[in-house]
Every structure is written in structure tokens, then in C-alpha cells.
């Protein structure tokens, strides 16, 4: 474990010093946090007119909230919809990091000394995975804290109390976010072990976000309502996928395979 932690510390230090990577990692929360807060503020401060009727019709499945006031109900359903949008973050940020740290080792020709060391394949995959998951999770949690604070402050005149974190959000942030971080990372490690450069690894792995974004779009357009049961099953599925894919990633991260393909 000491060796894995040494690899983790080394990778985190490299990430901290990579300005391009830090900017890419910050881009997602910088848009995902203020945008929903702005929407909540808009719902609260502007007469919705026809839009209210449209939204009420579109979101009728989600509007079975305890709020009699339609404006409050709309804000509540909008905040709930933001869960799926928010979960793109823990899925995508590890893709950025893992592609750099795994395929990047090959690109920068640092992989051979690492493979010559006593580190086992499993230790390398675990160390690299933690180096992608830890910052991604940290960013997600900080972003959620800012998001919750922003929503609570913005919605206070309407609700007169904090509305976040609620049950679904806590489940999303504390359970789903780590699972998705791990999923994004493991898929990227897998892809990185098959392709030759970090950018390609990033582009292929980023496709993982596409079905998730489709869910977000379907939800925001009112065609789909992702309730608590969905997230529960989704979490179970992600956990199972994580376990299977991590096993495959460790198996594929084999010295012989890497040396014969990469070095």
C-alpha cells in the first residue's frame, strides 16, 4: 500500500503543476454551478407567464412535490433535475486526469522505469485510479457545497428555509459521485491500455458521457423523470460495472502487453 500511496502522491503533485489540466478540470464546475442557480433566481424573480404553463405541463411527472405553490414546485423539480447534470462532473473529470496519467506515461516515455520497478500491475492501476478519483471527487464535493449554498441563498425568499441537501442529492453526491468517478477512471484506464496517446484516450473515454447527457436532455425537456428508484438502480449498476471493469483493467495492465504494444 505504501508504494501505491507514493504513486498517488506523485501523480497528485504532477496534476497540481499541470495548468492545462487544472483549467480543464475547473471548466465543468464553473459552468455547472452558476447555471442552475441562475435558473432558480430567474424562476423566482420573473413572471413566468406562458412559460409556467409549458413547464408545468412538461414536468408534470416531477411536480408531485409537496409544494402547493407552482413556482416553488417548479424550482424544486428544477433543482432535482440538476442531479443528473451534476453527475456528469464526477464521470468526466476522471477521464481528463486518467488519460493524462496513464496514456500520458507512455507519451512522455516515463512508463518503462515504472514498469521496471517492483510495483505490481494492480498497484499501478490502483495508484493511478486514486489519483484520478480523489481530485475529481474533491471538485465534485466542493462544487456541490457551492451549488447548495447558492441555491439555498437564492431560493430563501421563496422557501424561507434551506432546500439542499435533500435525500436524493445526498445519495447522488455521497454514493453515486464516487461510483461514477471510479467508472470514468476505469473506462479511461482500459481505453488507455489499448490506444497510443492521451488525447485519443480522452476522446474515446469521453464518449461515456454521451448517454448520460442524453438522459439530462430528456429530463430537462420533460420527456423523462429520473426519480429516486432510478438513481438507486443506477447506483447498483454503476457499482457492479466498477467492480467488473476494475478487474479487467488490472488484467489488461500487464507489463508484457504494455511493453510489447507501447515501449
Amino acid at each position, binding site marked *: 500500500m505504501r508504494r501505491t500511496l507514493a504513486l498517488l502522491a506523485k501523480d497528485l*503533485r*504532477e496534476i497540481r503543476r499541470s495548468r492545462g489540466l487544472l483549467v480543464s478540470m475547473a471548466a465543468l464546475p464553473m459552468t455547472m454551478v452558476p447555471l442552475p442557480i441562475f435558473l432558480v433566481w430567474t424562476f423566482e424573480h420573473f413572471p413566468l407567464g406562458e412559460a409556467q404553463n409549458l413547464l408545468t405541463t412538461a414536468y408534470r411527472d416531477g411536480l408531485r412535490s409537496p409544494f402547493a405553490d407552482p413556482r416553488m414546485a417548479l424550482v424544486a423539480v428544477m433543482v432535482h433535475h440538476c442531479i443528473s447534470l451534476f453527475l456528469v462532473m464526477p464521470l468526466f473529470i476522471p477521464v481528463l486526469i486518467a488519460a493524462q496519467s496513464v496514456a500520458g506515461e507512455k507519451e*512522455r*516515455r516515463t512508463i518503462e522505469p515504472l514498469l521496471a520497478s517492483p510495483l505490481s500491475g494492480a498497484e499501478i492501476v490502483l495508484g493511478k485510479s486514486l489519483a484520478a478519483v480523489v481530485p475529481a471527487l474533491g471538485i465534485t464535493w466542493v462544487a456541490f457545497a457551492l451549488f447548495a449554498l447558492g441555491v439555498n441563498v437564492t431560493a430563501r425568499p421563496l422557501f424561507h428555509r434551506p432546500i439542499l441537501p435533500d435525500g436524493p442529492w445526498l445519495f447522488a453526491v455521497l454514493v453515486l459521485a464516487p461510483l461514477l468517478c471510479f467508472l470514468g477512471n476505469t473506462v479511461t484506464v482500459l481505453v488507455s491500455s489499448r490506444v497510443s496517446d492521451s488525447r485519443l484516450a480522452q476522446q474515446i473515454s469521453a464518449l461515456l458521457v454521451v448517454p448520460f447527457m442524453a438522459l439530462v436532455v430528456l429530463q430537462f425537456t420533460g420527456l423523462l423523470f429520473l426519480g429516486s428508484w432510478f438513481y438507486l438502480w443506477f447506483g447498483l449498476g454503476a457499482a457492479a460495472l466498477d467492480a467488473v471493469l476494475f478487474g479487467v483493467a488490472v488484467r489488461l495492465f500487464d507489463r508484457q502487453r504494455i511493453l510489447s504494444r507501447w515501449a
Partner: protein
Amino acid sequence: MSAPAILARGLAKRFGEKRAVSGVDFEIATGEVFGLLGPNGAGKTTTLRMLAGMLAPDEGVASVVGFDVVRSSRDVRERVGLLTEQPGLYDRLTTRENLAFYAQIYGVSPAEGEARIQRLLELLGIWAVRDERAGTLSKGTRQKVAIARALVHDPQVIFLDEPTSGLDPEAARTVRDSISELASSGRTLVLCTHNLFEVERLCRRVAVMRPGASGEGGRIVASTEVAGLRKGRREVEVTVAGDAGAFTGLTSALPGVASVQAQGSKVILSLAEGESVEARTPEVVRALVNAGAQVRAVIPHEVALEDAYLSLVAEEGAA
């Protein structure tokens, strides 16, 4: 006799359909500096990787300091230092951070690691760049940092893969000096190169590898002492005033001389196998002068290591 530090018997490796190496045999004694010579594609790096516990051979067996490279590959990796062809440093980390990371993963304690890093950087003359990021260092300095990395865990065996490849002459010289220092420290060194000057200067024994014909895989075509590669012409040609025939009887009695010919004013002495032209020439000249010859010119002829190596590779290529 003590067990060899490195033992390889019938090593072979293939990648998919392509055979990279076949039938590699050698023994390297503890404390020996051994050269692995050969052109690109001869399988030198693959051989090193098998011996370093990174690749499992498809055929044959090998052990390093008593550990089997397949069954105990982790033990082998713990005891081996590998200087890769590319320095492979983390550009965003400083020299010290690069070395400290490797010290940690080789299980060296932080205090011991710090002490070793300082000692190595001072030995290699790069202590001044300890806090500079690797990405800002010159090529020669990067290579020295990579040498320090290969040594930070005090390995028993060190593999050096093309240590001066791509370096300017000055940097190459400082790297060679560093290797000389290592060689004198009693460690077992395997130098994998196609730089004959390096081999001549640093190694006592060599194995010459060459790429195999039509999917055979690279193999060893000669394994000998460096001096033994220089088979062939070893002659001293002395030009004297007048007829050289008068001196043939005298010079043929000299130790180390196999035969003598006179051609006009030239005496051509062929030396026996294993004799050094450099060592015998002064004796020959002294004997001729003592016998009253007026020596006008002395031309030693010896097969250069480069010629010996090229003829070995060419012979095999023609085969």
C-alpha cells in the same frame, strides 16, 4: 567459484508472430562490466527487459542474483537498476522529487532516500539542479538524473540501455565517466549499446547480437573478451635504411612474434594470437636499433574493434 550474478540459458521471446530474440546464452560474474553489442533490432533491449524481470521469456531460463526472472520477477526488479534508453523523467517534478518517488517505490526509507539522493547527485556533479524541474534540464543532465534514479535503491545489478544515445560528445563523456565510477564500485553492470568506443573503454567481456534472418529473432553471434574480438591482422611494419632481409632472423626470435617477412626495406612482423601490437612494438624497435638498423618508420596494424564488429555482423548477414 561464486554463482554468476546473471545467468541466461536459451532465452527466446516472440511478440505475436515475430520472434524478437532466440537462443540467448551467457553468464556474467558478480562485479563484471559486460557489454551487449549489436545493431538496432538485434534484440538487445528485449534481452535486457527479460533479465530485468519485465518480460517473461517464451523459452529458456534466466536468473539474476539467484532469482528466477519469471517466478521471482518482483525480487529481480527490486534488486536491479535499469537505465532506460530515454531518461523517462517526470518533467513537472524536480530532480529531487523524481528520485524521492523512485526511492519510495523501491522501499527506501525517507531519511535513507534523502541521504542517497544527495550522495548520488553530488557524485554525478548535479547537486546544483536538485530543485529544478526535470523538464528544464539539459539532455546530458537528464541522463545523469536517470542514472541516479537507477541507483537510488542501491541495486546489485545495473542494466544500462544505450546510456549515451543522442547525447552531445561532452555530455556523453560525462555519462561515460559516471559509468566508470559505477564500474569501479564493484556492482555488476550490463551495458547495452552499439557504441564500440564505450564498450572498449568500459567492458571486459562482450556478447555480440545480430538481427535474425526471416523471423529467426536476434541472437548472440559472439561472446568473448573485448580483446578477443580483434581476431585477424596484428602486424608491425618497420621501414629501415637499406635491405630489410638482414634483420628477419633477429626479429623472428622475439617473444610474441609468429612470423617475419622482408619486403625491400620493410620488415613485416606478424604477432601471435592474443598479442598486443601496442605492447610489442617498442620491443621490436629496440631489438632492431640494437642490431644496428636505422629505423625510418614504424606502422602498427591492428584490427579495430569496429572492423571486427562489422565483419562479425557482415559474416552473419551473408550467412
